[in-house]
């Protein structure tokens, strides 16, 4: 299943936040969206998944949804969004309960995604007992449980410290290498973008427009921190964004 955004424009009152976004999201690849703060990248992601309505333009879904997919467009949130009153397994069960799966099938899915995210021994833990990195692993397991056609990741590593971020990036690369998934990955962190993105879309300052699309051909598994080619890409992206990021920083809020 592919997604196409056509001429997407969004306004909050008189403020235009996104302007004329045209974009194809191709199957089996990770698309990163970067841009200065306030450029509407999170808003764009909410529109792609149908959590917000664009002022004009449309998000189109092309092709059939895979047959065993329970929730085609599935989010991973920056603040994890785990229910504190449910255990790790309970949080994953939550998203399966409305689908009338037979009990053994549900248990099997839960066991499978917990194993894939190395969480098997934490299945009965409460979210408050987990570190930030573990919480996000639970959220990733929950997303995998519904077998999504497209994963929509909204700054998934931004609430974590730098070391945990490295570990989770490795986990994401390993997950993708084993079973390639389609993802839209919003971040303000350029290092994440060049590590995980097959295509990187650079948005301009508000109103967000597509400034440039960078393609990185190196396979995800071969990308390592300190790789000169990746550093060159990152420097190029920073060059594109630097002035705008500075200008965005000087802007008054709600101005």
């Amino acid at each position, binding site marked *: 299943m592919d997604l196409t955004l056509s001429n997407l424009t969004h306004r909050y009152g008189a403020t235009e936040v996104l302007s004329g976004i045209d974009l194809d999201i191709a199957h089996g690849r990770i698309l990163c969206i970067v841009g200065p703060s306030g450029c509407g990248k999170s808003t764009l992601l909410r529109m792609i998944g149908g959590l917000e309505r664009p002022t004009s333009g449309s998000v189109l879904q092309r092709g059939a949804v895979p047959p065993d997919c329970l929730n085609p*467009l599935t989010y991973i*949130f920056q603040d994890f*969004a785990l*229910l504190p*009153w449910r255990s790790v397994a309970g949080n994953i069960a939550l998203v399966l309960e*409305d689908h009338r799966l037979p009990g053994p099938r549900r248990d099997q899915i839960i066991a499978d995604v917990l194993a894939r995210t190395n969480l098997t021994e934490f299945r009965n833990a409460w979210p*408050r007992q987990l570190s930030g990195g573990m919480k996000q692993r639970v959220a990733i397991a929950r997303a995998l449980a519904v077998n999504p056609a497209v994963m929509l990741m909204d700054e998934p590593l931004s609430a974590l410290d730098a070391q945990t971020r490295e570990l989770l990036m490795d986990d994401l690369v390993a997950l993708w290498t084993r079973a390639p998934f389609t993802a839209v990955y919003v971040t303000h962190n350029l290092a994440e973008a060049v590590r995980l993105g097959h295509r990187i879309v650079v948005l301009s300052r508000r109103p967000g427009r597509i400034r440039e699309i960078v393609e990185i051909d190196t396979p995800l598994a071969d990308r390592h921190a300190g790789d000169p080619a990746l550093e060159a890409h990152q420097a190029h992206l920073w060059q594109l964004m630097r002035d705008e990021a500075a200008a965005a920083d000087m802007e008054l809020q709600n101005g």
Partner: protein
Amino acid sequence: MAETDTRPVPFRGGGFRPRQVRGVGLAVFVALIALIEWGTRAGVISSLTLPRPSDVGTTLLDLAESGMLWTHMAPSLTRLAVGSALGVSAGIGIGVLIGLFSMVRAGLIPLVAALFPIPKIALLPLFVIWFGIDEGSKYALIALGTFTPTVVATYGAVDNVDRTLIRMGQSFGLTWLSIVRKIVLPGALPGILSGLRVSLAIGIILLVAAEMLGAEYGIGAYILQAGSLYDLERLFAGVVILSALGVATSSAIGWAERRMLAWRG
């Protein structure tokens, strides 16, 4: 800076952190009663000002031995249970509806705001006309008194449920009912339970008020009789029973919180 003047850095942190201290509450209680006991025996406090705590204790024991304690407790507990069960369940129901539906919110919040400050005791004659002098008017008084604080606590608690959790539920395609049952209600439960403490305390206050009118038996009736005879021992015995009732309901809610909110740790 030439002098090598070496001192430890003075400690400036600490404090401002309540910690659990066991037994102090009980000690204050015991000390206060011992002081009154001593004062009444020594004559510093005249027996018209305060009854002797030991006499109040004897009165309570007599009451228990004669079986009259239960005769007064049973109707009071029934009234409190029925009245507050009606008020609290209606309050939680309406509160959740206000939290979920904008139309209900717009329509009912002003009504609740208008009902809340009315001293319910002032409405007792009205309730007697509507529901009769028997149990009906007492149930209604306690129900209305517990209803308003429960509504306010409940819709506040529903409003405070983390919206990102609700967005998460929507993004996974959960049904509306699932979102309410599995995200909104558990998220609101801590607020609802702490509102319940206030509601039930108000229920006990109104219980006594209700029993002051046309009740033969009941803690309130017992206190009223004692009061009109200036029988301070019995009056205080009644007050002690009410306090015990307050402590009991409060610890029952504490127990419910520990059971139902174990996830908070």
